[in-house]
């Protein structure tokens, strides 16, 4: 493995982990809101969240490109007012990975929240706990397995993201190159040995992620 390859691996793992952390509070809040009874606009939010899961990633990437480009609604504002660019920087990678992996976290956490016996939350309230304390001491711990599973799924999705990333971040060596982008590029230009080395790393990362989730779940089961 060359230094450049290590950097790509490091960057991909790091930005995937960061995107999982970034979407965690937002995803949990969304999952919780969706798990609760009906509110106006719920089905619209539900659909919007799941959209990146069913749309072609490249199409999602194109939407993000249009929104966050210098002439886009959000990107224009960020560039003009805050002199802050997203497109074709590492932030674009983070954005693409977050949007693409959010639905997986939300879906998994939502099911987990729905499975928490509401009676336990109610009785926690009669014991003097307000909404936040109930959420963090009862709801989240009881939904932990589903939340962890959702985080692993989101992280794995981020590791392998291709379509949306290449639209908003391009494939700029040393700046926005991720594992998937590099493997594709290596094969295109005939550097098969580099592609295979990165392939090996991907397999190891995937194994580690799945093993780690299984480990967490096993430990959780034991403490019950």
């Amino acid at each position, binding site marked *: 493995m060359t230094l450049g390859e290590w950097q790509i691996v490091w960057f991909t793992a790091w930005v995937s982990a960061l995107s999982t952390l970034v979407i965690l509070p937002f995803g949990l809040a969304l999952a919780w809101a969706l798990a609760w009874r009906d509110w106006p606009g719920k089905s619209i939010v539900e659909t919007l969240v799941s959209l990146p899961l069913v749309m072609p990633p490249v199409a999602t990437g194109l939407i993000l490109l249009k929104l966050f480009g210098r002439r886009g609604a959000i990107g224009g504002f960020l560039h003009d007012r805050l002199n802050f660019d997203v497109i074709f920087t590492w932030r674009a990678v983070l954005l693409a990975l977050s949007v693409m992996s959010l639905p997986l976290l939300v879906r998994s956490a939502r099911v987990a929240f729905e499975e928490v*016996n509401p*009676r*336990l939350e*109610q*009785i*926690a*309230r*009669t*014991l*003097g*706990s*307000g909404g936040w304390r109930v959420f963090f*001491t*009862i709801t989240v*711990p*009881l939904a*932990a397995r589903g939340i962890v599973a959702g985080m692993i799924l989101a992280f794995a999705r981020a590791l392998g993201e291709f379509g949306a990333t290449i639209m908003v971040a391009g494939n700029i060596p040393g700046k926005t190159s991720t594992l998937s982008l590099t493997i594709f590029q290596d094969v295109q230009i005939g550097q098969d040995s580099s592609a295979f080395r990165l392939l090996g790393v991907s397999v190891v990362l995937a194994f580690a992620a799945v093993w780690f989730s299984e480990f967490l779940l096993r430990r959780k089961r034991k*403490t*019950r």
Partner: protein
Amino acid sequence: MSLLLKNISLPLESFALGMDVEVRGRVTAVFGPSGAGKTSLLDLIAGLRRAPSAFIQLDDRVLTDTAKHFSVPTHQRGIGYVPQDLALFPHLSVRQNLLYGCKPGGAAGRLFSFDHVIEILEIQPLTSRGVTELSGGEKQRVALARALLASPRLLLLDEPLASLDAPLKAKIIPYLTRIRDEFRIPMLCVTHDRSEALALADEIIVLVNGQVLQTGPVLDVFNRPASADVAAIAGVETLQAGVITDSHEGLATVKIHGATLTALAPATGTREVFVCIRGEDVILQRDAAASSVRNRLPARIMALRPEGALVRVELDAGFPLFALVTRPACAELALREGEPVTALIKTPAIHLVPR
């Protein structure tokens, strides 16, 4: 303690819960068949459920007043709630469960000390265990202790004994009476079991299909049901339609099918009545010796059904009549199916309910 439940109106699936009562007893049983809206009532008091109309006041503190769109949030109500499924937190140890509702800052804000509650309910040996390693009766005690340790002003118990078998019930009842006597905490206890209500409560609210049928001291309600519905669920064994044919000097002559009984005349002048007779008030006799008992009915034994230490005797006295006698008495009299006996019922033991 005074718990005011006024203008309560809560639509449920097949009926509406409606009530207007003041609860004053130390332990009050909300008594009624399953599906009468009892749990919904507890949820309402605890603030876990909203009603279109409700005014709830505990002592001098208004908890809910829908007319003013006012409602104290559940966690500030100070009402302990032990639900039927107990709702122990499965991800916490027994000790963590117990401490969950404890106010921070030590014993100052607490009504009862941790050690005292643990001692009274005998759960010291359980504290290091996981919740799933407890037996039914142990879970029940932990749930009670957890609710008490949050220092509630009122304790709501939903069918505290329903999930336990008879021997365990007998074990848990003393703990509940200890809570009642030791901690002097008012309790509202939902039950559909007559013996449970008798063992625990001093006051009773009879709730059927969301409506309060009768309130009062437990024994009064059980012995003097105000209507046939109450009599039926309060477990009065014999309940027959009868007609008052004559009434003077406070005594009424009642005809049930072929038989004639003497009973205390009801206050109202109705002629059509339900006749309620409890099984333990029916005395069986082999020969027809003279006695002060006014009602002497020749009867035939239709069936003998042992119930624990007692035998339920089904008689045909012109109408179906049930008697409860002890097993030794049953043996001594050599009661057998098909044989004739004389059933004696004292006049005050026959309760007439207008129909």
